[in-house]
């Protein structure tokens, strides 16, 4: 158990790795007044469905939820850009009294007419249920009138944690999968679940798999398309990254369509390579395995020498990691180790018991492992451990900069690809450029 001043309700969510190991509480609703770095159920749904580029995303509620999520993800689309528009029913006082169903109906009809989307997602925010709107009924009605699939996403902010929002998003996706029947001809077909094509990362991954001879039926949801998702059940295998967000969909597809899934991560050389081998092993194909090996050999052949410069410069540096999903934290610990950086603090907003167990196994003794942390805990741990670089998102950035340590943005608004082999170099460069900047000498004595 960690010893510094932590809120009583949170004591079991912060742990120092010891030889005996220990258990970390997680999956809990955030503590009131703790200043959690998490957002809400709505946020969970919104980030997962956001990259579906030919769908209409309408947020039903007062304007804030839509305003704060307008064009915030770095999720690229190779075609339509509809996902980058923010639509809100913008409920006002009158609607709170008389209900917002009429506005929702009219909004949908008009937006569908204007933008001709392939489908529409309607996100319920906090007050929608409280004011008695029957969102599902309105969606059904509009669907019947327009012939466009309209999917309600039950994502009222208070109704759980961000993780419950992932679940609500998966529910909506589940309703889509299996509604199309076009079969791909490829011998080896997969779906990629839980990559969001930040800075074009999906395109890099897809390139690797194509090189191996593997076809991607649907990417859910990076560079996502409604019709691809409808056909997703025709693939032979689901690869699940960001398991926190997409596990529900993977499990339901296994149950419904018998499609097995594998958990993978595309961050760092080890995990990226394993994600390729995993597919070859699944299809029990020597040919695939050989191609995967050749690909890895080729990539690593250029990558490792290129990383040498960074490893030399960064050797002995210490890192703190605080990210949304624990799968990313796990990969980051390994990726950092590869460039000579030791992780001294690692945590996530939404990790599960398995993730934290794995983190404990992976990390050195004395490492802080933390679930659903806050700025005061994070700043304390970072200072106590003497971390040189912080890997996190926008909300963690000022914690690092204020006390004069480097920072690498690994959140979903980033514009730099960090996945795959190319991403590993970018990541090393980013860590290096920040940790070794001469500016810190003016802050840290």
């Amino acid at each position, binding site marked *: 158990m960690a010893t510094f001043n932590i809120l009583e309700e949170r004591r079991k969510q912060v742990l120092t790795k010891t030889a005996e190991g220990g258990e970390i509480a997680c999956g809990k609703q955030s503590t009131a007044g703790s200043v959690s770095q998490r957002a809400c159920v709505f946020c969970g749904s919104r980030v997962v469905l956001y990259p579906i580029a030919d769908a209409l995303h309408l947020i039903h509620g*007062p304007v804030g939820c839509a*305003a*704060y999520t307008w064009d915030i993800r770095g999720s690229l689309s190779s075609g339509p850009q509809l996902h980058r528009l*923010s639509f809100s029913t913008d*409920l006002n006082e009158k609607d709170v009294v008389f209900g917002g169903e009429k506005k929702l109906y009219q909004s949908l009809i008009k937006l569908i007419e204007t933008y001709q989307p392939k489908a529409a997602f309607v996100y319920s925010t906090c007050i929608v249920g409280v004011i008695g709107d029957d969102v599902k009924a309105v969606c059904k009605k509009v669907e019947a009138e327009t012939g466009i699939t309209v999917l309600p996403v039950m994502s009222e902010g208070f109704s759980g944690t961000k993780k419950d929002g992932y679940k609500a998003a998966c529910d909506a996706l589940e309703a889509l999968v299996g509604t199309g029947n076009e079969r791909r001809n490829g011998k080896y077909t997969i779906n990629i679940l839980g990559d969001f094509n930040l800075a074009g990362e999906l395109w890099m991954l897809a390139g690797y798999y194509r090189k191996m001879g593997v076809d991607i039926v649907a990417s859910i949801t990076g560079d996502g398309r409604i019709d691809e998702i409808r056909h997703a059940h025709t693939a032979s295998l689901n690869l699940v990254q960001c398991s926190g967000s997409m596990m529900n969909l993977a499990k339901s597809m296994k149950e419904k369509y018998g499609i097995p899934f594998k958990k993978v991560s595309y961050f760092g050389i080890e995990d990226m390579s394993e994600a390729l081998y995993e597919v070859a092993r699944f299809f029990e194909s020597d040919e695939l395995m050989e191609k995967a090996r050749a690909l890895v050999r080729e990539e690593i052949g250029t990558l490792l020498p290129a990383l040498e410069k960074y490893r030399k410069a960064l050797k002995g540096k210490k890192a703190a990691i605080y990210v949304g999903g624990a799968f990313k934290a796990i990969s980051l610990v390994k990726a950092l180790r590869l460039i000579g950086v030791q992780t001294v603090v690692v945590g996530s907003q939404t990790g599960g018991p398995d993730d934290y167990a794995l983190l404990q196994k992976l990390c050195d003794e004395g490492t802080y492992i933390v679930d659903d942390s806050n700025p*005061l805990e994070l700043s304390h741990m970072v*200072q106590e451990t003497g971390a040189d670089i912080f890997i996190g998102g926008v909300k963690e950035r000022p914690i690092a900069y204020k006390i004069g340590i480097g920072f690498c943005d690994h959140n979903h608004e980033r514009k730099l690809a960090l996945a795959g082999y190319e991403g590993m170099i970018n990541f090393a460069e980013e860590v290096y450029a920040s940790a070794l900047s001469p500016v810190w000498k003016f802050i840290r004595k």
Partner: protein
Amino acid sequence: MKEEKEYIATRNACKLCNPLGACLAYKGIKGCVPLIHGSQGCSTYIRRYMISHFREPVDIASSNFTEESTIFGGRQNCHQAVGNIIKQYNPEIIAAATTCLSETIGDDIEKYLKEYKAEFPDAPDFIYANTPSYQGTHADGFHEAVAATVRSLAKRTKKNTHINLFPGMYSPADLRYLKRVMDNYKTNYVLLPDYSETLDGSSWSEYKKIPDGGTSKEAIITTADAQASIEFGAIFNKAGGSTNKNGRSKETAASYLETTFGVPALRLPWPVGVEATDLFFKTLSEVTGVEKPDEYVKERGRLIDAYADGHKYVFGKKAVIYGEEDLVLSIYRFLNEIGVDTILIASGGKSGALASEIEKLTMGEMKMPEIIDNADFEEIAARSRELKPDIMIGHSKGYYIARELNIPLVRIGFPIHDRLGGQRLLHIGYEGTNDLFEKIVNAFIEKNQESSEVGYKYM
């Protein structure tokens, strides 16, 4: 109004929600931790939005509503949040902002906070503002929170000790400008809110739970003793306001102090442009009896000199401006002064008073520009495509329109999410006007240079 006809959804909102403005104001109170009474997401989204602009830690606590609090009320969560804020931050003040959720279920935050104080008399002072996001915009929340702060703390002790200054939604740099002016006038003042340091501070050798700076509680108490209040703006919280036993009050901090303690309220336009800044200094000299310091006479001189140097690059150019109502009013007035033709004024604000305030500024002589209130960016985009402006002036979120139209965007106001330095943009005073003027002039010069075939380096 939109609602009367077939409703069109808000597409790319040109406004933020009420509690964001309240939190911004609360960040300008010394030793204060803001608390949003609602779902966890509200505080996190608002933090992220503000951090991306100010590039400073912005800690805002949440009472983190659950299913149970939504059904049975948020008392327990409110009390737990307050207790945990005290344990973690030991603040001097906890300032609460309500949300759409807590207001819709009819939660009585005032009562909850009073109960806590009764049980724990040593607890810090509480402030609360009613800021449901279904009402008004972030600008309303900002002014409502300032009014709520004064309502909670102001107490008459002595009289005529100083001048109160209630700024608009200004940048930290703007607030520092106001403070310098008051120092140069050698006049005591209370500036509320003052986030000039809390949201634009220096680096730390050790992490600070609550950043230094802000208006102290003691200073806020004395706002009731002021000789006068100066508030900047014309719209304030007209579309928001607190609900109390007597219905909806839309009073501002200055108007509250006037009615309650007899502190005269002087309402001035934002000091942007020569005329509006002159008016500010003239008023200040009248109130304080101090002559305008020479420094500002010279600063004014330099501004007018700059106007002369740059006038021909901007004259007759067509501008689209957007942002908070009080911001666009001040920019419109300034653009008139330099001969820029404002062809579209858009604001997400919904006070209903924007057009009449603009009309006042035309003084019956100028053609009324097109005005869209309760606007969203897709409306601004559609009208801009038709109107073909030469320049856009506003915050980062209009960038995509300027990009499509291939015209410069001069970034002002909040949020600046795609550039560094939003917190250090100076908009007000002769100096801020000069900055703004040069940015606009240089935007045109750069555009000409970039599109020149020969790429000259002398003009």
